[in-house]
């Protein structure tokens, strides 16, 4: 395999050749195009328009050589959605997959589909893409009809060539029909999601590339070192910035001694406003040194900003809620609890867990030509554009965001904070600025998934049937940080900008379709003393709240199964099978299907209560958990080994059975599911943000451990299940492909540990010391 043959056409090549030539000839845009990652001497001057989603030309460009480039308003942080969009669009357009390319997420050249988030890429955002590609095919057929002098119904399309059915020698390629010209076709629809032409999309059975495990187009450049990432952008005159964060949460900046760093090599500026402080130097290592040496003095806040992490749940129990959801009540739970033959109660604790992205957040801002260009790997480039414009007080026509690859950003990561910081500094000093967060900054100051304290109760009747269920969650989520809000990015907080009212936050509910006659579910939000300028600010983290909520709900189902003297899998199947509730998504049928598929693959051993303990040092057990997210349903099973003398837990084998509707790229989806599940395994075994009463003390990979190679299961099986009652539906939709797999893992591991040891762990994470303490308390630590 040669390097040439595996490197796809990179964004810069596409932009610099095909599109630039095309645009010049077609006069589509009056802007020159940026070349990400490459030094630019002549950035496009703006204003930056919003590409019009109602113009077919905004979505698809066909080139002279009969290749096509798709322009979509999504970002692909590494799950392969870009390749999947190409599969779907190539199918609708009738062009060979390997003659297509996909450009994503740069605000001035791709329509605004919001970037990525919520695993909606294929479920929702691929729909207008498919319709645009189908419309392009329809229009090309009409053009060919005129060119070849035959009605459309006498034409055939094969791989971007249209020919007469009766005489295939009479033919014309897409390139010959349209290259260098505009489609000039207006789509209809009130918003980008509903954009459509006249053409209908194909039944899914007619899609050729969809369903194939085609290799991802972004991977070769990620393994040969040729990819230019968001953090690799170099611009003429660019300087390097580092933040100097408050040493204590909530501290007030008293003084900055610029003289302490002015003499250092490469010094450019020290900038501060409110409690925000940054240094700017010519070279990167100089900026790091400058941030280290800058003398600042701070005043500690009068009151502690938060309790110690060890005391967090006591604090949350005692706190007065800032808001309560209206309870979700079904039936009459109070009467059921009063008349119960057996009541089960349990309380679960999930601490703050961080994004802790693999690298510190990074962004480069270029203020040339009186405009502002941001190079970022944030998954929501479009709202970043508006946020940066609003934060700086610029008209949004003057701001554009170029999305590029970067370290993982699963939700509201610190990328947005870094972008606003780079932009502010660039505006102040009128030079391009690269802002890079350091490791301690990322771990301590990124947004956190909220901590949850969840109380559950269940009532069983004399026949040990589950009659009532109560879920009561407290989430430490007050002043939840939204996406790209100019008044909630960290620099805004530090500069003293305050929203009128803090964001209320939320406490989420479990997702299941169990038939339980009487239910009550309630969510309450509590806040920490410090809600502004805090390193413990919460924000959406991959499958937001799902791992926390499902840890409690699916652990508790096992506790109820024990009380009902039932096998945990059988108990779930029974609760699912008994339901007669209206179910338009067929979630019940599909839930049963994934549980049964997982059990068959895993070789589920039925038993009531924990496995009889062996005599050895290592105890083994198996656990199950299930949940759904949107229309995607997941069942996971784990086999664990627990070392009773050290408390070490190893998930030796994991099975994930997954129904997310139409599968566009099976091998791609399997890897996404594996990685999502292992991310939650990391949250189950390792991850917890630690803090004292002054600051976050989790600052690196020692004080904030993560999953490593040695933790990885020996075997992982991902089963792609289609449990739809009509599996061959021509309109079968892909459902959310990623985040659902993060949801059930914590509970599956806890349930497996219980099976192995008879000890129920209700506090995450299951680090060895915590597990050993629980085993000791139960007298299980010795053979």
């Amino acid at each position, binding site marked *: 395999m040669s390097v040439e043959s595996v490197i796809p056409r990179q964004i810069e090549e596409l932009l610099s050749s095909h599109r630039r030539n095309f645009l010049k000839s077609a006069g589509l845009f009056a802007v020159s195009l940026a070349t990400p990652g490459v030094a630019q001497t002549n950035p496009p001057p703006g204003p930056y328009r919003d590409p019009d989603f109602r113009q077919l030309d905004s979505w698809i460009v066909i080139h002279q050589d009969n290749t096509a480039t798709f322009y979509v308003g999504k970002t692909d942080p590494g799950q392969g959605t870009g390749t999947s969009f190409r599969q779907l669009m190539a199918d609708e357009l009738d062009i060979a997959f390997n003659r297509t390319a996909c450009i994503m997420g740069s605000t001035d050249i791709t329509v605004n589909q919001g970037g990525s988030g919520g695993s909606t890429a294929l479920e929702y955002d691929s729909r207008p893409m498919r319709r645009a590609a189908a419309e392009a095919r329809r229009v090309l057929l009409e053009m060919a009809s005129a060119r070849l002098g035959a009605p459309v119904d006498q034409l055939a399309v094969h791989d971007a060539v249209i020919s007469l059915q009766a005489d295939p020698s009479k033919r014309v390629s897409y390139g010959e029909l349209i290259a260098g010209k505009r489609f000039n076709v207006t789509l209809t629809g009130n918003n980008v999601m509903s954009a459509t032409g006249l053409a209908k999309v194909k039944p899914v059975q007619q899609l050729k590339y969809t369903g194939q495990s085609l290799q991802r187009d972004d991977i070769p450049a990620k393994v040969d070192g040729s990819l230019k990432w968001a953090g690799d952008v170099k611009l003429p005159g660019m300087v390097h910035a580092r933040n100097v964060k408050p040493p204590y949460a909530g501290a007030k900046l008293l003084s900055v001694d610029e003289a302490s760093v002015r003499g250092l090599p490469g010094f450019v500026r020290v900038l501060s406003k409110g409690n925000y402080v940054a240094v700017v130097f010519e070279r990167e290592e100089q900026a790091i040194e400058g941030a280290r040496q800058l003398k600042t003095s701070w005043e500690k806040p009068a009151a502690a900003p938060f309790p110690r992490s060890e005391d967090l749940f006591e604090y949350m129990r005692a706190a007065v809620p800032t808001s309560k959801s209206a309870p979700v009540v079904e039936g009459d739970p109070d009467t059921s609890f009063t008349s119960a033959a057996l009541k089960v109660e349990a309380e679960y604790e999930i601490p703050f867990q961080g994004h802790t992205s693999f690298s510190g957040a990074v962004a480069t801002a270029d203020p040339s030509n009186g405009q502002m260009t941001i190079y970022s790997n944030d998954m929501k480039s479009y709202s970043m554009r508006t946020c940066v414009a609003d934060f700086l007080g610029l008209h949004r026509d003057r701001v554009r965001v170029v999305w590029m690859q970067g370290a993982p950003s699963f939700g509201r990561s610190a990328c947005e904070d870094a972008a606003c910081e780079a932009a502010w500094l660039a505006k102040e000093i009128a030079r391009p600025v690269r802002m890079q967060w350091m490791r301690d900054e990322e771990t301590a100051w990124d947004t956190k998934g909220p901590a949850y304290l969840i109380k559950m109760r269940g009532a069983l009747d004399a026949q040990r049937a589950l009659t009532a269920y109560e879920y009561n969650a407290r989430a430490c989520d007050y002043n939840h940080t939204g996406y790209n809000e100019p008044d909630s990015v960290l620099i805004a907080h530090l500069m003293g900008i305050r929203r009128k009212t803090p964001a209320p936050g939320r406490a989420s509910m479990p997702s299941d379709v169990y038939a339980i006659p009487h239910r009550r579910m309630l969510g309450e939000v509590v806040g920490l003393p410090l809600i502004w300028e805090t390193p413990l600010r919460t924000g959406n983290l991959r499958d937001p709240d799902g791992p926390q909520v499902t840890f409690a709900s699916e652990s508790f189902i096992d506790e109820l199964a024990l009380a009902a003297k039932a096998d945990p899998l059988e108990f779930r199947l029974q609760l699912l099978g008994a339901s007669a509730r209206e179910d338009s998504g067929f979630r019940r049928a599909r839930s049963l299907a994934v549980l049964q598929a997982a059990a068959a693959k895993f070789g589920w051993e039925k038993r009531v209560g924990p496995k009889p303990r062996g005599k050895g040092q290592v105890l083994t057990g198996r656990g199950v958990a299930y949940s759904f997210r949107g229309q995607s349903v997941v069942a996971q099973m784990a086999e664990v080994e627990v070392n009773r003398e050290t408390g070490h837990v190893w998930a030796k084998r994991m099975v994930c059975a997954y129904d997310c509707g139409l599968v566009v790229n099976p091998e791609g989806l399997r890897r996404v599911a594996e990685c999502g599940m292992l991310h939650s395994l990391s949250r189950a075994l390792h991850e917890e943000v630690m803090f004292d009463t002054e600051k976050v003390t989790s600052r690196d*990979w020692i004080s904030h451990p993560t999953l*490593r190679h040695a933790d990885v299961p020996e075997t992982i099986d991902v089963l792609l299940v289609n449990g739809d009652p009509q599996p061959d539906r021509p309109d079968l939709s892909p459902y959310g492909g990623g985040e659902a797999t993060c949801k059930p893992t914590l509970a599956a591991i806890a349930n497996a540990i219980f099976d192995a040891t008879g000890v129920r762990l209700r506090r995450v994470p299951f680090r060895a010391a915590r597990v050993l303490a629980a085993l000791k308390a139960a007298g299980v630590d010795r053979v």
Partner: protein
Amino acid sequence: MSKFTLKVNRRTHTVDVDPTTPLLYVLRNDLDLHGPRFGCGLAQCGACSVLINGAIQRSCVLPMSSVKGEITTLEGLSENGQLHPLQQAWIAEQVPQCGFCQNGQILAAKVLLDKNPHPTDGQIRTALNPTLCRCMTYYRVQAAVKRAAKAIAGASATGEEKEVVA
């Protein structure tokens, strides 16, 4: 500032930087290489890994004054337009998600296979354990190492056969 001459990926470069500058920033900012990456700056994650005389080093904490030897980065693994078998295995197994850590994963795997061409599963886990991934591609990384080991063994077996025939 001091002048340093570096041999990187079979080419010689001269840079003028402070001797305390970590090698990482010279590779990235002066030589415009994108394989080595900033992950932690603390030698804890492996994103910045490079090979120096065939041994793996974390360039984020290695001052220029201590750099002795010939440097190979991820870009330098391919030769004469041919990807290294590890890179080929990485593509075949479709390993990366975001891909940011894969520089460290691939180089750690290279050092392992150079020393031990037929590692057991346990040896792979142990050798790669210091190299982190936050997308959690570990399972596929391990599969790709095994695939590459097989490919290298197969290629060298073929090579030996040819020598015998010649």
